[in-house]
């Protein structure tokens, strides 16, 4: 998993590439730390270039959502396709992460 953070006037965009799985635990936490160091009002996770997310990956989205609630910014997820979209739908996390 790789990610790039773009912050334009407090609206952040995180573009992910690669798989988001259990083994990305450490990089994902680093990402959340990077986000927490920026002043943002919203953040969108762009999953267009993600091929695969496992259940641990979904758990990391939930952690991100909690951080968003605590730090008072809004988390959205976009661009999920194929397996990633199915996983989000199957677990209804697409609804949870949409607000």
């Amino acid at each position, binding site marked *: 998993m790789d990610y790039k953070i773009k912050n334009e006037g407090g609206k952040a965009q995180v573009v992910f590439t690669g798989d988001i799985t*259990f083994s990305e*635990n450490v990089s994902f936490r680093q990402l959340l730390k990077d986000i927490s160091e920026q002043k943002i009002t919203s953040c969108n996770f762009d999953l267009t270039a993600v*091929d*695969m997310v*496992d*259940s*641990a990956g*979904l*758990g*990391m989205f*939930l*952690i991100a959502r*909690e951080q968003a609630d605590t730090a008072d910014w809004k988390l959205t997820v976009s661009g999920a396709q*194929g*397996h990633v979209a*199915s996983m989000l*739908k*199957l*677990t*209804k*996390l697409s609804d*949870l992460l949409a607000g």
Partner: protein
Amino acid sequence: MTSEISKKDTKNQDLMRSVYAARILIVDDMSLMRQMIGMCLSRGGYKNIMYANDGDEALKMVEDETPDILVLDLNMPRVSGYEVCRALRSDPRYEDLPILVQSASETPEERVEVFAVGATDFVSKPINQPELLARVRMHLENRFLITSLSDFRKRMQDELVMARDMQQSLLPEASTVKEVERASHMKIESFYRASFELGGDLWGCWSLPDDRLGLFVLDIAGHGVGAALNTFRVHATMARFNRTRVDPARFLTELNAVLVPSFPLGQFATMFYAVLNYKTGHLVYSGAGAPRPMVVSERGVRLLDSTGVPVGIIKKPDYFNIEDKLEPDESLFCYSDVLIEAPQPDGTMLGEDGFVDWVAEEARKPDRKHLVSRVLRRFFDGQPASLPDDLTAVALHPNKGGKE
């Protein structure tokens, strides 16, 4: 902070105590050299120093006295230092024993040969005492650190094996499965393998009143010790809900209510629970995000809707029951996500569509009762021996129907 430093100090003190108590074997055919090296090390604080006059004696003493390090002369009559190195390195017991070689002539060729025969390090003669002390100390420290790390690793591995065995004991006992099979006249075909780490898969079945049976599969997110411990938590919690076992949605709701406050953030269980009336085929089920179970027959595969918020995330997940019917020739097949997510030999993942195709193909063949083992044989053909995640696959097969 202070306590961290003092902990570190204690660790260092322990290490240094081991270093200075180390058994050092000095091998040299010249008595003066033995004495000089011995005196240097003894002044440096080392207490256990032994001496060998030649290579032959050195090899015997290594066997009898099990030294922690050798300070070895190269040019000795009869058995030379080179031969001592070769002999020790060809014995698995001594392949990690530090050998510090000392020699007067020091051509580049000699250095190459010294390391080629297995020496750990090199000091040149005449001996520079501070250098000798520094090198001996460094190699002993390495040796003790590596030993303590490998002891620790071994202990952790033993503990993991024990934990895996304990986790295995959460699965239904053979007698329970037999009892459900006898009552339902169905065949339960199951497979479970923990990943190389600990994991969080679990399945179970039980008999229910009025010709019914209950079957669940669950997968706790992530793996490792945290997921495994949560498997025990879920298993123990489920045992408390005897009353609601006949109603899948209520069962999941009750389980969720207990687990939401106790699951750490980011952990949850995807789950599927079904109640089947084996006389009528009436099936009631509820899903919490588990991979979609399949209803399998020669005619093909249809998927059940296991959509639902995984257990342990939110207070009101709104689980609901869905009703269906198993025809007399249909099997119900539940599985964990590793089957669709594990990388195939070509690097891609099989995905749900690919896996459904496999199952449909296998279902057209005779001997449905071994459908799971056939599908898994195909899966394992393309997999390394150790899986990235737990694997669970459970099928309920009709005893009649389907080609035999």
